């Protein structure tokens, strides 16, 4: 048989190639970015739209916050309300009337002044039923807004929005809302340039293609320069932005990434300054090899199980309490998740808008067994087997298996695991065809109401069949209390009641895990993962090696 080129020789040639390539100094995108102040970031899935009134996903904020600005902006470290388009504001003594004074130099990217009228017309658009804006209900805190949106009052004049003049805006609330300024930071409150929208279609129905490069007019620190769907979005520093002097980045390139492994590879090859997320399997490698790039930030979201309280057995409060007490959350966080998540002993994450949840659930298998016995099922005898449903994902399965084992070991209960694709699970939730359901809740704004509100009887996000008049009453009372200390006390009381009734089992508080190049400055850990871009800049890390 004729001689084949020997394997060692092939390997040697390949090595030579690799060496040569290593010698060639090719400037990476990240290095070029540092030189030109261009931030390259992964952004998770593609945004559905850049119309702030129609955007729905929490991740849409990633791009929208570069293009638009509301009355109230965010402090880069605490996300506390900071002056945005409004340079100052006053609140009436009864906490019902907010008066905003717009700055004189707030401009749209086409040069027009941002006026009080722009805001009011924008909010009118959000509340127009035919637009079907998903987040319209966030405006319901304003007097008359709900009635107008639901078609009970035909006149927009009855809604509590009022332009005193071109630069003064007055908002009258339904009732005192201590978190109103935080709520204003949500993108659904941001203004759009209606003359532009009218040029490209109707402002009252969907399908208006105005939010594209060349036609999008915004009022944020950046303007849209390019959007290749599924590929890249480029925003460039806006010359008309009122605070352009503070903005140090010249441009931001956003890369939608469907696959978190691909995103991490792009980061490692020097294409990205930061990723949106990091695969769990890569955390340990970064911890040992480059800990300075690994970031684990707190995140305002809770991982929990819903319990369908309309089912026999699960309708017993003691059974539900037993299920919750028998879970060793520490073990789940430390051994399965391993990304700095915090054990959730309550539903609201600690320090949400200054609120501390009550002392909640502890791991107490003995107490759990006793409760189950009191309910009439000592050692799980006579108890039906339970069904635990989750959407298909390796992590959800690992956690479910751990909990299945804990409930079997501590309580003698049989648990069947079943998984389905995402929307099928949501449909099972809607129709109540589940017993125990893996769930998650992300806060819309940093206030406990964003979490506790979903367990009200009339909430569209409850789904457990649980309702409690005392709980509703406590929240109702808290909503009318302006003093934050009293209000927090009422909310704590409500949350204690919620945890004791246990229509849900909190498991852990999320963290946001991602990798960040050391050149990115001004990127502070914030609860909502918001990072006002005007405070971000790039700086070559000190002399390397």
């Amino acid at each position: 048989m004729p001689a084949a080129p020997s394997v060692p020789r092939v390997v040697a040639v390949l090595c030579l190639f690799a060496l040569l390539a290593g010698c060639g100094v090719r400037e990476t995108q990240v290095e070029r970015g540092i030189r030109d102040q261009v931030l390259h970031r992964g952004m998770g899935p593609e945004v559905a739209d850049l119309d702030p009134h129609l955007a729905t996903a929490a991740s849409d904020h990633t791009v929208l916050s570069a293009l638009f600005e509301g009355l109230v902006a965010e402090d880069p470290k605490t996300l506390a309300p900071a002056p945005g388009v409004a340079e100052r504001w006053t609140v009436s003594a009864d906490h019902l009337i907010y008066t905003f004074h717009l700055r004189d130099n707030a401009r749209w990217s086409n040069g027009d002044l941002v006026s009080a009228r722009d805001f009011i017309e924008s909010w009118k658009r959000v509340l127009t039923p035919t637009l079907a804006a998903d987040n319209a209900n966030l405006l319901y805190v304003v007097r008359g807004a709900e009635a107008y949106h639901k078609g009970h009052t035909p006149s927009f004049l009855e809604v509590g929005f009022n332009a005193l003049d071109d630069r003064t805006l007055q908002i009258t609330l339904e009732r005192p809302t201590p978190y109103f300024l935080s709520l204003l930071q949500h993108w659904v409150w941001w203004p759009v340039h209606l003359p532009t929208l009218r040029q490209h279609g109707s402002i009252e129905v969907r399908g208006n293609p105005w939010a594209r490069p060349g036609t999008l007019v915004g009022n944020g620190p950046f303007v849209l320069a390019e959007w290749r769907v599924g590929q890249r979005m480029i925003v460039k520093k806006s010359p008309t932005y009122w605070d352009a002097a503070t903005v140090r980045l010249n441009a931001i390139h956003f890369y939608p990434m469907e696959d978190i492994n691909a995103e991490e590879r792009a980061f490692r090859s020097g294409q990205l300054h930061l990723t949106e997320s990091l695969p769990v399997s890569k955390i340990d490698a970064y911890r040992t090899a480059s800990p300075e790039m690994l970031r684990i930030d707190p995140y305002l979201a809770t991982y929990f199980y819903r319990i369908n309280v309309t089912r026999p057995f699960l309708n017993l409060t003691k059974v539900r309490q037993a299920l919750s007490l028998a879970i060793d959350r520490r073990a789940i966080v430390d051994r399965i998740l391993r990304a700095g998540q915090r054990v959730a002993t309550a539903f609201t994450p600690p320090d949400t808008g200054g609120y501390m949840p009550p002392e909640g659930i502890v791991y107490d298998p003995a107490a759990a067994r006793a409760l189950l016995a009191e309910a009439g099922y000592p050692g799980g005898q006579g108890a039906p087997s339970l069904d635990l449903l989750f959407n298909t994902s390796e992590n959800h399965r690992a956690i479910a298996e751990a909990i299945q084992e804990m409930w079997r070991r501590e309580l003698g209960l049989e648990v069947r695991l079943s998984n389905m694709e995402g929307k099928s699970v949501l449909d099972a939730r809607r129709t109540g065809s589940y017993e125990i359901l893996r769930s998650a809740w992300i806060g819309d704004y940093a206030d406990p109401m964003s979490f506790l509100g979903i367990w009200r009887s009339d909430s569209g996000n409850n789904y457990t069949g649980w309702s409690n008049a005392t709980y509703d009453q406590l929240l109702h009372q808290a909503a009318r209390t302006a003093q934050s200390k009293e209000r927090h006390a009422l909310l704590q009381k409500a949350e204690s009641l919620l945890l004791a009734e246990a229509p849900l089992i909190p498991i852990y508080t999320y963290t946001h895990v991602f990798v960040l190049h050391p050149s990115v400055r001004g990127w502070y850990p914030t609860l909502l993962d918001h990072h006002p871009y005007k405070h971000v800049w790039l700086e070559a890390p000190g002399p390397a090696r």
Partner: protein
Amino acid sequence: MLRFFASRLLQSLLALLVIITATFFMLRFVPGGPFTAEKAVTPEILRNLEAHYGLDKPLWHQYFDYLGSLAKGDFGPSFKYPNRTVNEILGDKLPVSIELGALSLLVALLIGLPLGILAAVRRNTWVDYWGSTLGMMGISIPTFVVGPLLVLAFAIHAGWFNASGWYTISDRVLPCLVLGIAYAAPIGRLTRGGMLEVLNQDFIRTARAKGATELRVVFKHSLRGGLLPVVSFLGPAIAGILTGSFVIETIFQIPGLGREFVNSAFNRDYTLVLGTVILYAGLIMALNLAADLAQAWMNPKVRLEG
């Protein structure tokens, strides 16, 4: 030939209508809808959304509405992307998928054909063994392994290419190579088999006896017959490359249709699922038809039986 073509075309159109109907109704029986989300929209907003997209009408009404707009070439609005139409999305993404597919096919043919011919001509030598080994490896190692490995070697360590994206010419290299290799393997094996069969026939022995050069024997006398199996494979292969590019598109972040095809089903974006299904079904039918025609042209036997 014309009758053959006409009858096949008619069959295809009928099949397409069946596919559209089945997809339309199956989609509606899947649990969850386009507006099912982790954070529920209020009942009023849901009603407004359904009214806007016509989902509040009876199902048969929606079906005929859809067929009506389809006849005008309108695939309808997307549910997931509120300000985009399905036509726009398909128009954006199909060219990318076609480019990826065409380049990969080129790579597959450039590697597969010479390797297959060489292996057949030099049967049972090291060329043949190496070719077969590579072919087996290409078939058995999936693209989601080859892809990240090549990225690791050539993007992260060597730094020659970007790890992901679809901007410059150099961004085309890795994905097309990975997808090309996967299809080069079966092409090589089919070429080898087809060529071997022809090379063993009497008329080849006659050609050789008459003193024809080896090159003439291979390219003039054997190739047309030897490539028949490859041609019949190409129709489904092109369709496979186009529809199966999902994995490659995900690994390399390529904004093609494959990703949209899969995600639209998860999003219950009814119109976008239908749009991609119709497009793909149409493509596959057209390609199969083309493969049949090419085969009929190359092999009179098929023509007569058809």
